[in-house]
């Protein structure tokens, strides 16, 4: 009996030994697999860290490039304005000092108008740049009076030219959610209508009504002019920056780009129609839709 018991015990022991060997083998295999996985993870981690470092490097370069651009933009606009000031002052003094009303006076006035145009361009670039960088704050604003003030301002800048601007509005209390730059919108549209106008008396009729679109209440402002008009292919392009490189649209500058950017920042819309449907040569109709507030 004892020998049989011993024999049984020995078999059990061998079985246990074999089982343990198997378990150890499995464990060794798992450990190897784990080490391989760890190696792969370390590699990925290294690659990840390398990618992060590269991205940080790119971000650093981008920040430096941005700061450089901002510096040059700031320096340029400041120094150009100083130069324009010197030219403007000199020309205005010449205008006052020269008695005759002939060609010299005419040339001086052209120079002065170009200086002011240059100054306006610098200002528009600055404003456009700021609009693109930051979120502008909108507030409830009464714009009928702003429109009237803009009209007076524009008319006063054409002392020696008769201009007719009328306003036909559904109300004289018009509240919209805009930024203070709305004044630039009105002035740019009005100046544009006068600048590109060969009529003896440039005329602009401003019509203000209300419109609802997709459950949103809008103020609709239409600026009808008797200017040279804008052909269909150009109606979208005039709002694009860089379009001025094309000789055919010389003079559009950045004003309308600024207008479109401001209106879009106010969650509005702007487009151009013909004053007389189908005949662009009779003038344009600049249409603004601006969200209304109570």
């Amino acid at each position: 009996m004892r020998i049989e018991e011993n024999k049984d015990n020995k078999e059990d022991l061998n079985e246990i030994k074999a089982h343990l060997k198997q378990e150890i083998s499995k464990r060794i295999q798992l450990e190897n697999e784990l080490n391989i996985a760890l190696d792969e993870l370390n590699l990925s981690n290294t690659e990840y860290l390398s990618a992060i470092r590269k991205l940080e490097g790119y971000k650093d370069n981008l920040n430096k490039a941005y700061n450089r651009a901002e510096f040059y933009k700031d320096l340029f606009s400041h120094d150009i304005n100083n130069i324009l000031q010197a030219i403007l002052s000199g020309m205005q003094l010449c205008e006052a000092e020269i008695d005759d009303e002939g060609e010299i006076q005419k040339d001086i006035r052209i120079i002065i108008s170009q200086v002011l145009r240059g100054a306006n361009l610098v200002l528009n670039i600055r404003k456009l740049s700021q609009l693109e960088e930051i979120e502008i704050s909108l507030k409830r604003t009464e714009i009928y009076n702003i429109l009237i003030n803009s009209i007076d301002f524009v008319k006063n800048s054409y002392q020696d030219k008769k201009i007719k601007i009328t306003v036909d509005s559904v109300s004289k209390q018009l509240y919209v959610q805009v930024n203070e730059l709305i004044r630039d919108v009105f002035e740019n549209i009005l100046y544009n209508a006068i600048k590109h106008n060969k009529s003896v008396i440039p005329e602009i009729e401003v019509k203000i009504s209300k419109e609802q679109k997709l459950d949103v209440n809008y103020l609709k402002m239409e600026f009808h002019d008797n200017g040279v008009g804008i052909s269909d292919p150009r109606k979208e392009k005039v709002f694009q920056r860089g379009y001025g490189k094309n000789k055919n649209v010389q003079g559009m500058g950045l004003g309308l780009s600024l207008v479109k950017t401001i209106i879009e920042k106010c969650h509005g819309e702007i487009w151009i129609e013909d004053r007389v449907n189908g005949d662009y040569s009779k003038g344009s109709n600049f249409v603004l839709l601006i969200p209304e507030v109570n």
Partner: protein
Amino acid sequence: MEKIFIVDDEPTLQYFYKKILELNGFEVAGIAENGVEAINMFKSFSNKPKIIIMDHRMPEKTGIEATKEILQIDKRVKILFFSADISIKEEAYSIGAFSFNVKPFTINCLINNINKALECYNSPHLMNTIKE
């Protein structure tokens, strides 16, 4: 004849300011090229000018910094900022500037601002700035 103090570092603009002011019946009290010079010259005037035409970006000390110190010397003086740097407009008003105009400005703008400032200086009950 009313005296105007010019503070601007651009020689060409100093020349034009002087010429424009004299043609319009004003006397130039002095011309400073930077903020430090502006403060020192202002202190030295026995008969303080009522109006200062102030630029902002100048060597040594800016127009904003000079304005703060000058107004501590004489808070009645009207400081008219004419700067190529529109970004400082709000700060200029906050420290007590009478007006702020960005360059380039017309002769009419300069003279109108000076006349309004003189009106306010001589009648203190009128508004202290012409901020738009």
